[in-house]
């Protein structure tokens, strides 16, 4: 039987008009902007805050991701950050008083080549040292954990094993955003939709506010959380970022009786799939190679994704694609985010989450709020500074996952 989703609360947020001035303005009401506002209020008592959103709240990548949450990243710096997020996910439904369907059903990352096996083992061992739960499963264990995966040795790229993070899983994306928005609003944060930032107010080298489609608003600090549009905003401030915006697509099937108990990811064959609570299969497709701001991608990505899905899950043959869509992901050269101050005083940056920032939402908000409130990075985001592209101290996650959902 399919599940009706839990009811949303009777009250979510106000629709205020912008004030003339705020202590902090956050640009972008995606998950990261909202989490930042929430933690600014909760952890730092800063509530004279506006989150400005050009469209509808959480209508960017937050509305379009495949909701995979895990912390089993390769680099220690990444694992620490994402693990902080995972620990927050574990307490947030209660703290936010919102059942956003966080489901720790485990995530399998399949290995199909000897090199995949090496990389998987490397990640499992690194994760365990970092305090992240991780196991290595052989093909039989994979089948036991997720019986619909085709573990036959006869396929083109047989499953040789998988890493499993048992505490990983999924959550319902919009509910997460709304839960954060609701609490932020309760703390007094103004969530202002239909308000596009079109420029920055400057006094000398300092940013003192923003220009918007609804007039200028001054601010003590301005914090960007605009995901795919980060470069466009940075450009308005005269800053060039090591970020490129690419289309990334996802799709859902119709509602189906439960068949898929966990989350399966395969970089090699290219499948990312879970079955959401209502019963739809949720899958991510590939990133288009070229830049794009169109929230749509090239269809061959979907076709390839389907071929790959059937290679691994023959039972999906007669499932149907109900809807496809695209988002705009902000990709950095090392596939890791950038969080921290910028060379421009009072302007802060949080971007570059690429294909995998949903899972980081709470931690991203936590450390970003810390950075904005104190002017100094939190130890967890210190390594993710913009300077690393000058020093060369990249946090390269390519080895771990071509696409890091």
């Amino acid at each position: 039987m399919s599940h009706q989703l839990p009811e949303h609360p009777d009250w979510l947020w106000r629709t205020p008009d912008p004030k003339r001035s705020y202590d902090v303005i956050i640009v972008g009401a995606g998950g990261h902007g909202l989490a930042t506002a929430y933690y600014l209020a909760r952890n730092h008592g800063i509530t004279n805050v506006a989150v400005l959103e050009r469209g509808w709240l959480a209508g960017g990548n937050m509305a379009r991701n495949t909701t995979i949450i895990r912390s089993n990243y390769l680099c220690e710096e990444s694992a620490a950050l994402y693990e902080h997020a995972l620990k927050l996910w574990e307490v947030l439904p209660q703290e936010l008083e919102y059942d956003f369907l966080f489901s720790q059903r485990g995530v399998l990352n399949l290995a199909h080549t000897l090199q995949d096996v090496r990389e998987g083992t490397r990640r499992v061992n690194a994760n365990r040292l970092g305090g992240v739960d991780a196991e290595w499963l052989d093909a039989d264990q994979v089948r036991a954990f997720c019986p619909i995966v085709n573990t036959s040795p006869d396929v083109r790229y047989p499953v040789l094993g998988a890493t499993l993070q048992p505490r990983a899983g999924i959550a319902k994306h919009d509910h997460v955003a709304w839960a954060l928005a609701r609490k932020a609003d309760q703390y007094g944060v103004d969530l202002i939709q239909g308000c596009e930032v079109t420029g920055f107010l400057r006094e000398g080298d300092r940013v003192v506010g923003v220009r918007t489609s609804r007039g200028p608003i001054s601010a003590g600090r301005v914090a960007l959380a605009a995901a795919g549009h980060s470069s466009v905003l940075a450009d308005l401030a005269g800053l060039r970022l090591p970020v490129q915006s690419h289309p990334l697509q996802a799709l859902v099937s119709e509602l189906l009786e439960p068949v898929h108990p966990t989350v399966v990811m395969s970089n090699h064959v290219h499948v990312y799939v879970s079955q959401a609570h209502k019963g739809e299969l949720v899958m991510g497709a590939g990133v288009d190679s070229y830049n794009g701001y169109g929230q749509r991608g090239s269809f061959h990505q979907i076709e390839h994704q389907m071929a790959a899905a059937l290679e691994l899950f023959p039972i999906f043959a007669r499932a149907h694609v109900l809807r496809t869509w695209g988002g705009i992901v902000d990709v950095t050269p090392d596939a890791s985010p950038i969080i921290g101050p910028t060379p421009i005083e009072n302007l802060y940056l949080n971007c570059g989450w690429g294909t995998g920032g949903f899972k980081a939402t709470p931690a991203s908000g936590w450390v970003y709020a810390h950075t904005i409130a104190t002017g100094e990075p939190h130890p967890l985001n210190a390594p993710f500074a913009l300077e690393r592209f000058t020093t060369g101290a990249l946090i390269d996650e390519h080895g771990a996952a071509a696409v890091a959902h």
Partner: protein
Amino acid sequence: MTQSHRLPDGGRVDRSAPLRFTFDGVAYTGLRGDTLASALLANGVLHVAPSLYRRRPRGIATAGAEEPNALVQVDGPCSEPMLLATTIELYEGLSAAGLAGLGRLDPTPDQAVHDKMHIHTDVLVVGAGPAGLAAALAAGRCGARVVLVDDQPELGGSLLAGRESIDGRPALDWVAEARTELAAQVDTRILTRSTAIGYHDHNYLLVAERRTDHLGPQPVPGISRQRLWHIRARRVVLATGAHERPMVFAGNDLPGVMSAAAVRAYLNRYAVLPGRRPVVLTTNDHAYATALDLVAAGAQVAALVDTRPEPPADLVNSARGAGIEVHTGSAVVGTRGHDRVSAVRIAELDADDVISGPVREVACDLLAVSGGWSPAVHLWSQSQGTTRYDDDLAAFVPAQAAQNVVSVGAALGVLDLAGCLGGGFAAGVEAADLAGFPSTAPSVPPTSVDRPPARPRPVWLVPGETGDPSEWSDHFVDLQRDATVADVQRAIRAGMRSVEHIKRYTTIGTAHDQGKASGVSATGVIARLLGARSPGEVGTTTYRGPYVPVSFALLAGRERGALFDPVRTTAIHPWHVEHGAVFENVGQWKRPWYYPRPGESTAAAVERECRAAREGVAVMDASTLGKIDVIGPDAGEFLNRVYTNAFAKLAVNSARYGVMCRADGMVLDDGVTLRLAADHYIMTTTTGNAAGVLDWLEEWLQTEWPELRVRFTSVTEQWATVAVVGPRSREVIAALAPDLDVSNDAFPFMTARETRLASGVAARICRISFSGELAFEINVAGWYGLATWESVIRAGGPLGITPYGTETMHVLRAEKGYPIIGQDTDGTVTPQDLGMEWVVSQRKPFIGKRSFRRADTARGDRRQLVGVLPADPAVLLPEGAQLVADAEASVPTRALGHVTSSYRSAALGRTFALALVAGGRERLGETVYAPLPDGVIAATITDPVLYDPKGTRRDG
């Protein structure tokens, strides 16, 4: 079973072809030409399945792809969930069951074939109703290549459901003639049963054709079940018609509440009378035809309710003339009935849509509803065209085009037949013209005499008789999601303002039908509850593909099983298969991993192969290495720039190992390059990187150094390469190549010789060693690869020559501390990290050089490649094990590095590993620990070269 509701005559069903079928286990009979839905209705079956969440009875509500209720699971060799009874063509033996909005996947393997086609056209017309047919005819007459697609089995579109006339004759006669004319046009292709599902950038459309579904579930030999057409069109004409909207009133979900246009289709196309005592509810002219057709079919139309206070007099008169009671300025405000509507409640509405008069109850068994028409702008919107709200039509209509496309007919909001025909024809002529086929003799478009309909009066939200919207929980807005006006109101009260938020709060529009017919009604309800001036202020949610759901199998096409991804094999592959090789996937290549003897374990086989290479002679197929001819007077200079070390002064017939870095200084690839002549080198790349390296070279040459005179030719498959390795390899080569002086002096290490083998085959033999042993590589034209391999095996037979695979190759090179790019490196490793300062020229510039001076890249404590010897020489460190300095350190702790390669070595008589360790070269002799799930392994850091560090063996 009798077909109790089948009309005695008429319709496009074949009365001579009765078909038996079962639904929910009950047997029925229908006719060829029926859909499952029309056949069920013919048998008096209306109810399909309960609703998903509230388990309310639900019936067939439409006659097409916009159906929200009639979802079924169809049995077959592999049963298929979530198909629509309204679009399934009936076939003999069909067996299906109703679904409550939730499908079931069948674990039986799906044997059906799905395939794809790629075609181009000048003009693509989507929809073969009057507008589309006229467009296709016109474009075809101009000589353009035309593709006409329609999702129905026959052409005609809504004409199939009506009784219109064209040029003074029955419209379907005109359709038949049009079909004949189109079929005779050489360059026109008609695809029926074909739904355009996607409209992508650069006029790229996808069309899903159902080729055999109407024949039954069994695969038809040779014919794919469904086909996905990829169509690139110069111009597109969208003639996709319009969807009739439902209306939102209390109890609007009862079975028996049906689209008025669907009722008309059931009457005229399928010869089925869906109800004997219907009521018709409309906001516009169109449903009058339904009412009259119902009367003509013998139904007793109990009432016609028109929301408009003053509908066109001629329509009202004709209805009254047919004995129908017409209620103007009124609406149905409620229904009665349990499993089926048994009565409707009718009341007058004032100008603000408030109930303004007494409520009257009228008994009925069917309520035909026309809430207005929404142009099917789905594909238009997918093409990024904009829409605008048209107040006169009460509909969103196409506005600004984003590609080479026009909409015509009802899809544009043109609702009269004459307008559809004329507009379609003109669009066809124009599309052909713009595609380069001007019309020479403009023919006269077909004509019809009807007039554009009068203004509709949409009532987006029919009020309940009591309470306020927050209580209207049986006013359904989205039937499949069981979402009601009360839900919308709750969302708005919670603070939601955007239609996108309300969609997500209520899940309206997210079900199987994607709100095809109900989406605009939902917008109307939202507008009303928000107090917006018009639905245009609220807008619609985003239209996304596919237009109708399509199976994963169709999109996967033939890229399944053996055809999923190319398999690349070498010329010698058949021998490997015959000799029991176990293969490893390396990129798309199949490479022998090892060659177990019967009963032999992997470890034993590898140990045996290694021993042969170290003590006797062994042979490996190295053909997969990428090979690139680099030719031209500036070839040496070019190589100097892309490799970290120098090549310009390499002697002819000599070879050199080189490393390439990306601009960021990280190792990209490595390999041996041989100079064949002053201006001719042949470069080898790693197996997986061959194509990437060629691209890399072309990029630098073309975009940065076009002045360099050098050319690249990929010759990977031109050459088969056989590596003959081991102290006795010289004997084998001597036997094979009698003309060659194989002595050390005459043929030193890292040189090459051209010769003719005893077999007569021309060969280039190089002395290259990736194992530290004396070794030769024989290169022959690919088509001699197998024979040459066989002759090596024969020549080496007396010496016990042993074929070996990639695993042994890895052990041998690791014993020598040679890294494998991609295994011992991961894109974050510099040549210096690998201990290869010697390969990094200090004198010349090369790609990546500048990066070595960056703060982080110049650090001394970077992870460096070292050897690692487990304390217990029998214990094998797993590849990927992390290394720490302190065995007792509590988690979380930082690793020093990790094991990249690890093997059992026969030559060393122990296990050993390579690892990347922070400041590793400063730590030689230190003990490190690998904490693993089942214990800690202690090991000592050593120099990475463990075998023959002095290099005494390479000359044999």
